[in-house]
């Protein structure tokens, strides 16, 4: 595998920007008509051709992440794609993370594998923290974890997968209640019953899907990795996913800030352009400050978390970053007044996308509970 050197970073990110300009932006220029299945296939193929969705060679999304430059590339690339479309960035992230985890688990390489990390009820009220700390679990906590981890043999409540159309296999962790440990599985789409929800709040280019194991499917093969590797990989997956969601939110909000600044420098109210009004400057300024905080925080993520303390660091960022990103998105929508509420202008989409990201795989409150339980003496 190629090493991702610091000197590779700038040209690689420039190449992503070029890909976004030529292949993504033209398909996402009308926010009220989000990219459909065909456009998504076209973008996915383009991403594969440019190496953004690689085959583990070391220079694509979620490749070479052992090097700080590799992490910075992945987060920077997602941010750039999200500048055109958060949903498409999320779609590429799901495919890349699925492929990365598949490789680590020893499954056959695939560019159409996605990962389902999201179980039920956030972070199991902090029981997840105890599991990852190898603490003794009470029966109630085991029950919480059994429900939290994806359990595709339907226990009455859906596991929600957010992904673009076209995925072919699913990688997911599950909780072995008897042995109190995490196990990883892979499953072909054919072995699953997939129900697509009518629509969801944001990330319009992807779908919220309910996945259930087809009752005729034979037992699935558990990935052949050690208990410790399994737990460490889970920490890594959650951490990378968390950082990705911050990057995607940041990318979309940065575009919104640029659009709002441009709008505010042209639109007139009364006898002056609106960015001469303190009310508008305050909205733009607070959004700029919020995005600055999130960007600075994201720069501290320089390697995949492999210990709980490192995961905590990423989750701390996430618990604060998404509320800030949502506040920035809503402030920037407000700059547009009534037009901000109209789909054609794209500002409401940025807000919906960021709200959606905030709720996915651990809401701020759920993360707070996860963190809070570990800070007890």
């Amino acid at each position, binding site marked *: 595998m190629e090493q991702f050197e610091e000197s590779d970073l700038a040209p690689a990110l420039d190449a992503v920007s070029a890909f976004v300009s030529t292949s993504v932006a033209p398909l996402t220029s009308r926010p009220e008509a989000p990219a459909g299945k065909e456009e998504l296939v076209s973008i996915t193929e383009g991403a594969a051709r440019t190496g953004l969705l690689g085959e583990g060679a070391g220079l694509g999304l979620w490749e070479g992440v052992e090097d700080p430059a590799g992490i910075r590339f992945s987060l920077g690339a997602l941010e750039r794609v999200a500048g055109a479309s958060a949903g498409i960035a999320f779609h590429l992230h799901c495919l890349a993370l699925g492929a990365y985890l598949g490789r680590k688990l020893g499954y056959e390489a695939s560019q159409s594998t996605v990962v389902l990390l999201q179980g039920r009820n956030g972070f199991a009220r902090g029981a997840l923290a105890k599991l990852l700390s190898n603490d003794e679990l009470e029966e109630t906590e085991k029950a919480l974890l059994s429900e939290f981890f994806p359990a595709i043999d339907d226990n009455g409540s859906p596991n*929600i997968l957010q992904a673009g159309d076209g995925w072919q296999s699913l990688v997911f962790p599950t909780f072995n209640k008897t042995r109190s440990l995490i196990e990883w599985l892979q499953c072909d789409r054919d072995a699953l019953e997939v129900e697509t929800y009518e629509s969801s709040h944001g990330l319009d280019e992807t779908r919220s899907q309910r996945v259930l194991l087809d009752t005729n499917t034979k037992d699935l093969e558990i990935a052949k990795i050690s208990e410790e590797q399994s737990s460490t990989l889970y920490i890594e997956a959650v951490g990378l996913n968390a950082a990705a969601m911050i990057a995607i939110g940041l990318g979309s909000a940065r575009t919104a800030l640029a659009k709002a600044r441009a709008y505010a420098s042209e639109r007139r109210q009364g006898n002056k352009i609106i960015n001469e009004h303190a009310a508008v400057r305050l909205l733009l300024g607070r959004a700029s400050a919020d995005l600055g905080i999130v960007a600075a925080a994201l720069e501290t993520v320089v390697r995949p978390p492999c210990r709980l303390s490192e995961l905590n660091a990423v989750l701390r960022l996430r618990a604060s970053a998404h509320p800030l990103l949502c506040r920035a998105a809503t402030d920037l929508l407000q700059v547009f007044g009534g037009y901000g509420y109209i789909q054609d202008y794209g500002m409401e989409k940025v807000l919906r996308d960021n709200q959606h990201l905030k709720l996915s795989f651990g809401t701020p409150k759920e993360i707070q509970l996860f963190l809070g339980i570990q800070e007890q003496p």
Partner: protein
Amino acid sequence: MRSLDGFLSGDHPLSTGRAFERLDPKVRALVTYEPQALWKLDTAALPKALGEYRRRMRGFAQSVLRPHALELDCDTHGPKSMGILAEAARQGLLSDLLPAPLGTLPLRLATRPPQLVLSVKMEELCTACAGLGIMICAHALGTMPLLLTGNVSTIFRHVISANKANRNGAERLYAFAITEPGGGSDVEDNEGAAAYRPLTTAKQANGGWIINGRKVFISGGDLAHGAAVFAALEGEGMESWTCFLIEKSMKGFQVGRNELKMGQRAVAATELIFDDVFVPDSHLVGGLRNGWALNRAVLSFSRIPVGAIALGIARGAMESAIEFACRTTMAGKALVNYQEIQLQIAQMMIDTAAMRSMIWQAAGTWKPNQARASMTKVFCSDTAVAVCESAMELLGAHGFLKGNSVEKNYRDARVTQIYEGTNQINRLAVIEDQASWLLEKCENVGGNGNG
């Protein structure tokens, strides 16, 4: 006796109920412990007739609007919406701004300020669906400038006859049309208006006026029989603004596009286009150059009910979140048993109660005040968005699924921070009201107050 986790059961000696039983009866006459569902508690606090009206509005909202709210979020003004509108007309909801026999408001409610009655109605309708609630109530806003002329002839010719038609099932709705493509805030703010060049103009003609221009974001504009349209006299500025009642049948009046909106999709926000529309003198509303005054008066009246719209949306989100917390289990227990969920629900209850208190207080006067109306609108819309965010967060990853309603509540709530003046404009309206007092303060502390 059952109890939620974290609380003593009602028969425990240390429970609050049992403790109060031991108080002296004379004290219990003053301090009681009688837990009740909040809706019942609030309804009981209203005058009897208004409480009955609230019950009736809730019944209508829950039986007629709520079952279709999610479906009609994607189907603006389709056949099902028209059926709902017809039912609202039949039940007198399109004509109850005025008491019987002029309208359908129960006579006993004529002794209550109309903005209070309308606020009670808006909260209930918008708890079920803000879009449908506004589809039904936009007409009240459209008739408001006509009523505020105080001209008996105008009121009888247009408002009373519309009430009669609506009661008889031949819907006759009016829209309120002030916003122009280039000047949303300019028509809501004095200083902006002073410099604004209005796009919609009126030129005098034989026996009437020729109107040209466009209005945008007009709620229910595509359904309306006519609209109260504000236009400047040719060659003049906003000081000449005049209100004209323009009917759809008038030549040159076109309904433009319905906007694709983030939320409140069950009601259209429509563009209205006027291309040499001849409006007879009989349709001039409130006199020449009185449009700005009428507009300001309407906004002082309507901003309080906008607060009620926001409250209804927030309550809808809260009720959906509570329903989810009661029906969804985690490790064998309903979510509502977990303390973090109880805290979130309690905060939503506190927030909605605060909104309602502010609305009922501001609406309880016969003379709506600009500052109070703007304060109510700003506080309620901001709080509603926060409540909807909290409800979404309570549902976690289920919060973004359309079927759980709360994401729709959030989308619906967001525009209440924008329409009837952005919250920034409304904050400045509060200051405008307080300007004399603030200038006096400047003089007292040695400033000259001239900035």
